[in-house]
């Protein structure tokens, strides 16, 4: 068990290193930061001098090596666009993304499991089928369009909810939170729905099909024959057994929630790391792009690792 964990962690580190290498190999194809950093009256010497001082004339693996060296000391470099330490910028922006991801993840999980159980129990009912069909509409349109349509309906036409931003935030020990103000909570609604809709549908369908499968199995039939109540059967036995695949998928989806936050944050001007990344691409802000990619990789690899370990913990058969 210990050696398994050790091996997995080692593999994860390797994965991170490869991600970084690939990222640095690709940066020069995104564009030239020098053009976005200098004004229109720059001279050829200005361009050369800046390239040299940013180390852009070095081969990409040298740039990567330097990045790694500094990153290990906690220095992620200076953003080309803002001229400020990247670590500082990311620390400022991360709470927005994490809060959005947490709320939309919770929304997806709660609604997904609830609706999944409902549609499984009422498999042939009208409302269950209607929910199944409606949920598909949510995943049949691209995220950005759903976001824009929600803004149009709830912000412009009805004027119930704000169209952009996080509302008022409160600093709690270096963490800016929108959870403590009314406007902060209201501002979370539309982006969370936009971001969580796809995951909700996914979890709902997974729970439904796993429930249907489990409910056919012998021990559930026994339970039913023993006269256990429907509620006990559904929730204590059937639902419990569907949780392993749900954990896996949710874990994996958490990463993609953060990735898809890029789109949602752009549409709602949500000041998180996704929007930061989009700005970085437009500006060819290499230090920010590199830091973001590494951050996402660390998160994803970490989540993967945790899910794998949870798996082992939950299912004893896999322990061998």
């Amino acid at each position, binding site marked *: 068990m210990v050696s398994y964990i050790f091996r997995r962690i080692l593999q994860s580190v390797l994965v991170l290193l490869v991600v970084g290498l690939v990222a640095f190999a690709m940066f020069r194809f995104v564009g030239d930061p020098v053009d976005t950093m200098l004004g229109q009256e720059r001279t050829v010497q200005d361009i050369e001098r800046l390239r040299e001082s940013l180390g852009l004339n070095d081969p990409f693996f040298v740039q990567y090596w330097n990045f790694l060296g500094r990153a290990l000391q906690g220095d992620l470099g200076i953003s080309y666009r803002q001229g400020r330490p990247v670590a500082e910028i990311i620390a400022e922006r991360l709470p927005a993304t994490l809060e959005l991801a947490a709320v939309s993840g919770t929304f997806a999980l709660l609604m997904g499991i609830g609706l999944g159980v409902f549609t499984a129990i009422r498999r042939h009912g009208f409302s269950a089928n209607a929910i199944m069909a409606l949920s598909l509409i949510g995943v049949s349109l691209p995220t950005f369009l759903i976001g824009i349509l929600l803004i149009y309906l709830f912000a412009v036409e009805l004027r119930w909810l704000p169209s952009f931003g996080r509302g008022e935030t409160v600093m709690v020990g270096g963490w800016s939170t929108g959870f403590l103000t009314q406007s902060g909570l209201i501002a979370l609604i539309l982006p969370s729905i936009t971001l969580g809709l796809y995951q909700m549908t996914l979890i709902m369908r997974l729970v439904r*099909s796993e429930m249907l499968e489990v409910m056919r199995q012998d021990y559930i039939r026994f339970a039913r024959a023993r006269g256990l109540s429907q509620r006990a059967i559904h929730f204590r036995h059937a639902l419990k057994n569907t949780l392993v695949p749900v954990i896996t998928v949710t874990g994996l989806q958490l990463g993609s929630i953060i990735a898809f936050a890029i789109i949602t944050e752009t549409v709602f001007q949500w000041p998180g790391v996704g929007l930061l990344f989009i700005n970085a691409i437009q500006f060819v802000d290499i230090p920010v792009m590199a830091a973001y*990619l590494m951050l996402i990789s660390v998160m994803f690899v970490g989540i993967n690792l945790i899910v794998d370990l949870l798996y082992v913990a939950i299912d004893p058969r896999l322990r061998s």
Partner: protein
Amino acid sequence: MTDTPAPKTVARSRLAMTWDSDVAHAFRHSPVAMISFAVTAILILSAVFAPLIAPHDPFNPATLNLMNGFTPPGEANMFTGESFVLGTDDQGRDVFSTILYGLRISLFVGFAAVGFAMVLGITLGLIAGYVGGLVETIIMRVADVQLTFPAILVAMLIFGIAKGITPPEYRNDVAIWVLIIAIGLSDWVQFARVVRGATMVEKSKEYVQAARLIGRSPAAIMLRHILPNVLSPVLVIATISLALAIIAEATLSFLGVGAPPTEPSLGTLIRIGQSFLFSGEWWILFFPACTLLVLALSVNLLGDWLRDALNPRLR
């Protein structure tokens, strides 16, 4: 996930039987399946025969008249007097024709991307599951790396590289293939995981052991014996992936990494159309979005039904 073990011959005929009777029977008794199949078929056919159906060729810039721009559906343009069933977009392109041609590109990207992901995923999944050991570890870690890079990012980066290495005149042709590779690359992991799982289960069974004993090559065993057993889940994933791939293409368009505007896909049309949401030219967004919705919805419903129909335990 654990499939019930079955001797080889039974496995094959079960598959055949399923196709012959069970699925067909279920299909005949499911109005949802029949409708979504019909809608999908109609959309695919109209995409294939777009040049015959479409009243205009929106991909030929020489035939466009900019003054036709923003003609509302069914109304006559105030400068040229021409009228169009679903109106025109900002370039004076007939929206109906553009949708048909855009559908063609979206479906092509979708099918090709899923095909690519399927071939790649099945191959790597089979190898990982059958060979095991270091090879498996490497493949599955690569899968992790792949998952780590969000699909959007993969596409943007591949797009950048492809642009860097192709001369400008070919870039538009390359764009479509880049989309296919990018979307395909973000999707193969699912196939690989399912196939690997099933392969590991099958590998230990008697018939595979027997085949190995009589000296069949690993490739033959994988293709002839193991692959047929994993086809049903693969088919289900493929159908759902098709819808996903079409949506992914649209999402990438929003980030400026989609089909070129002169030869737009449905996603590019939606990206262009969304900028006219507030200006009142609703038809430029509405019709392509509806088409995409109907297409993705029917493919999804079909995939859903297929999953239930191919899973004997659910019936």
